[in-house]
């Protein structure tokens, strides 16, 4: 199970996003890669667009020195835009996404949304 801690519900542009993530109840030696990303997505009527603001991938020897059941802290300075938005046919949402890959080919994903800015609605 992936735990995402310390994430606030809303941030202002240029704020620093700070959160912890950890994984429990798994065999740590079976982890082959870990990916952490901060991204925005569009939803609504149109085809979905995605923009990755921050991406980190850990794999190979760098995994061995990390205790994955302990919180791993990530600092990400947020951009000025795009702000979170709930329009009529266009919606923009931000989230952090953590993905663990295992030796048997399976993966574990956890995602947590947050707001960027104070503009949330079209009207």
């Amino acid at each position, binding site marked *: 199970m992936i735990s995402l801690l310390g994430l606030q519900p809303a941030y*202002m542009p240029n704020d620093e996003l700070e959160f912890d993530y950890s994984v429990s109840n798994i065999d740590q030696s079976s982890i082959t890669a870990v990916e952490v990303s901060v991204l925005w997505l569009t939803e609504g*009527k149109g*085809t979905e667009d995605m923009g990755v603001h921050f991406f980190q991938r850990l794999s190979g020897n760098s995994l061995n020195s990390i205790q994955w059941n302990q919180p791993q802290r990530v600092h990400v300075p947020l951009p*000025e835009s*795009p702000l979170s938005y709930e329009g009529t046919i*266009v919606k923009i949402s931000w989230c952090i996404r953590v993905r663990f890959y295992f030796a048997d080919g399976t993966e574990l994903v956890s995602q947590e949304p947050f707001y960027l800015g104070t*503009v949330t609605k079209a009207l």
Partner: protein
Amino acid sequence: MTGWWIIGSFGEASFFAACFLIGVLCLSISITSLQVGSGFWLLVWVSSALIILGAIGFWYRVLKVVTSDEHREAISHSGLIPGPTAKSKYVPPPMIPLLEPFTDSPGAKLAFRLPCPSQDTLALIGIGGFAMSWNAMLAIFFVVAIRSLFEGNIQYRLILLLIPGIYIGWRSGRLFFMSYVQALGIGSTTVEIEDLPLIPGKSYRVLLVQYGKLVIKKLTMRLVCEEESTYHYGTDIRTERSVVREQSVIVQGRSRIDWGRPLEMEGIVSIPNDAMHSFQSLHNAIHWKLIVEGEANRWPSYSRSFPVVVYPRAASKPASAD
């Protein structure tokens, strides 16, 4: 300039169009009838000069009508091909349209003249180009047909082909001149703005200038925020738009506009505190634009759109735009 501007401009365009057609006719006669000699080359030279003079003069007159004097002046200063731009350390906010296309044209009274991406001008040029090429081709076939008539070797198939050809040439020429007269009468619209990019919570002066020779029944300018989504529907690609904010900026009742005396109106554009910034991704967008709509006597209603860029409140402005 004195007299009725429309007749003058229309007459000049017709004169250059006639020069072009005479040039094509003379060239086709010289190529089909004359032997190569000094007289032949003289005629080819004169005909080519007439064609070039006619084509350039014709399009110059047409384009002078569809763009304003100040706009052409701005283009002549900046050049059609933009020069190399200095590298700046400023990085624009992500997913917001670049500001440069909106700020590269200075205004006469306010800081920036907004671009107006219009399909009308392109359509006019397209129709005119087709009419000119078609009628030039027709003139060559016409000369060949007349020549065969005089020689007693009548080419019936060519004459039969000329009949629908003349009809298409007449219709395309008529369509072009109707669009041209409409562009002449309504004239161009320019919008200038005090500052760019626009920031939520701030107000900006705008200037609307309507050129032409017409009696306006109503002229309005609105600030509009529009969402745009592109999606696949079966094998089609569809685009849907939805206006989510609208603000009246200028409303003008009945007024008369003459050539040399354009209608100028000022207004205030206020961007609400909680407004969303401009956004552009591959399939989704949020556009802000100033829409000018006019109703005029004896002319069809028209609508012209002037996009603007709204930044988020926290975003830093580029140094060049200050």
